[in-house]
């Protein structure tokens, strides 16, 4: 891509970080790579129109692509643990990282938009206003979704901690 060296540099420098955002959204490294790749193609074509921070632009594309992707692909492929591996992708709840695993599970069950809000707020450290802008929704909606999602997470993690104390 000889005539867009800034794009090449941007991709090389920022891909690892953006891949992590995509991973938290999709919970699967393969799907995350596909999502990032799809977003980067879009960005390449929009590059001349990107004003200001390209990373914010890509982040927005990743998140909105994923939300619309899931909406349309609801019957698409889903990763499945290898039946022979005996452990697969589902973490063992008895493992020492029980809380971490529980959060991972709950995160996966959240609607895509709620998960996007959590990732943007707590992984990308955006403000509520910035998150609202990325997703094209109101600040009020961000607040509502964030508190609902956090409540679900808090429930499950506290419950699990409690259960562990009882069985200790």
């Amino acid at each position, binding site marked *: 891509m000889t005539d867009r060296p800034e794009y090449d540099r941007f991709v090389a420098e920022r891909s690892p970080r953006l891949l992590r955002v995509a991973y938290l959204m999709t919970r699967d490294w393969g799907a995350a790579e596909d999502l990032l790749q799809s977003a980067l193609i879009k960005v390449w074509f929009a590059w001349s129109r990107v004003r200001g921070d390209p990373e914010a632009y890509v982040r927005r594309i990743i998140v909105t692509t994923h939300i619309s992707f899931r909406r349309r692909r609801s019957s698409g492929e889903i990763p*499945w643990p290898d039946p022979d591996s005996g452990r697969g992708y589902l973490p063992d709840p008895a493992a020492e990282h029980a809380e971490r695993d529980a959060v991972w599970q709950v995160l996966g069950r959240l609607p895509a938009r709620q998960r996007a809000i959590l990732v943007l707020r707590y992984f990308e450290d955006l403000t509520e206003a910035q998150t609202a802008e990325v997703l094209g929704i109101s600040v009020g909606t961000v607040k509502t979704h964030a508190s609902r999602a956090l409540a679900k997470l808090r429930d499950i993690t506290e419950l699990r901690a409690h259960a562990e104390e009882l069985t200790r």
Partner: protein
Amino acid sequence: MTDFEERFRHLLRDLSKDAPASGDRATLLHRKITRRRRFRTVGLAGALVLVLAGAGAGLVTLRPAAHRTLGTAGAVSATPSHAALTGPENILLAGEDPYGTSADGGADAIMILHLSADHRTGYLISIPRDTGVRIPAYNNGAQSYPGGEAKLNMAYGYGARGLTGTAARRHGLDLLSKTVTALSGITFNATASANLAGVEQVIDAIGGINLYVDEKTISTDLGYDRSGNEAVPFKRDGSSPPMGAVPGVTPVVYNVGNQHLTGAQAIDYIRQRDLLANGDGDYGRQRHQNQLLVAVYRQVLSAGTLADPHRLGDLLSTVDKALIIDSGGASLTDWFSSVRGLPGDGLIGIAMNGGQYVTAQQPGLGEVQTLNDTSRQLLDAVRADTVSQFVAAHPDWMDTPTK
């Protein structure tokens, strides 16, 4: 920020680093298999079934199609030539995913169909969609792409970008074809792409398919509830792993032996890669796809389909609607007659890299597949029409059981 929010923040950071252990070959391989989008691989079967189904039927009634203008913009063959196509032929087949040329669509099931000079043997050589390639510069009239390093499956998107419908598919296919040529040195006499829905329609048009199921396969996608209604047998959770069986829903099981399947069942069967009795995952799936192609081809050639005017009519209109072909200047009829001599057992599938993952890291792209030296020899053999010698030297590279 509350304590809980702070804790959650740390957990997210922790989780984002949770890559599978890179040294664990099995994990890595499993990841690779898992990431395959079933639809995408299956789309390839669509292209081939349609080309071959058309081939079987073409001599008889496809003539009207030959008088339509075909080919990509600028390369229109208005006057059908009826010269016989002789010598070795290379056809690029692309399977389109169900989203076609939409923003997220692509064609990343990619296969070379090589016909030997006598047109008695065909070789199906699949190229990994994640192969790291140089995509050449391309202008589709709507957008210009200057060329760059990317994965092979991105070529379709770059070629189709900014266009819709048939124009998008043609240009996607065109850039994909140019990219494979740059990678392999092979020039194509024709290119074709088709989608999953097309294969299903073809199978229904020929009255279902008789297929030998070679390992017991439990469907993760198709099942029935207690009232006999169609239902999904395993819980789906968006892109996350399913949480287990859905109570009250019995999955469809494909048992070993000769089975008669409808279009929908056949498609479901060749999509499966999770609950295969032999645990051969993606390789099993690809083998089943090859077997389906051969079965469809045989069935189309059988007197039953060709002699039944109703089935034949359905098949022809299905093929006509579902397939995008750039026949390289020759008429479709010529193409069909040129591959018609291919016997049902004359189709041999070959797995690039011998079916093994050969993975490299490329900045900005992540993991890509590379072609090993033997794969390069295979491509050379395609150019020289010496694939039969290659196969004789590498019998383990064939993935279609010859029986």
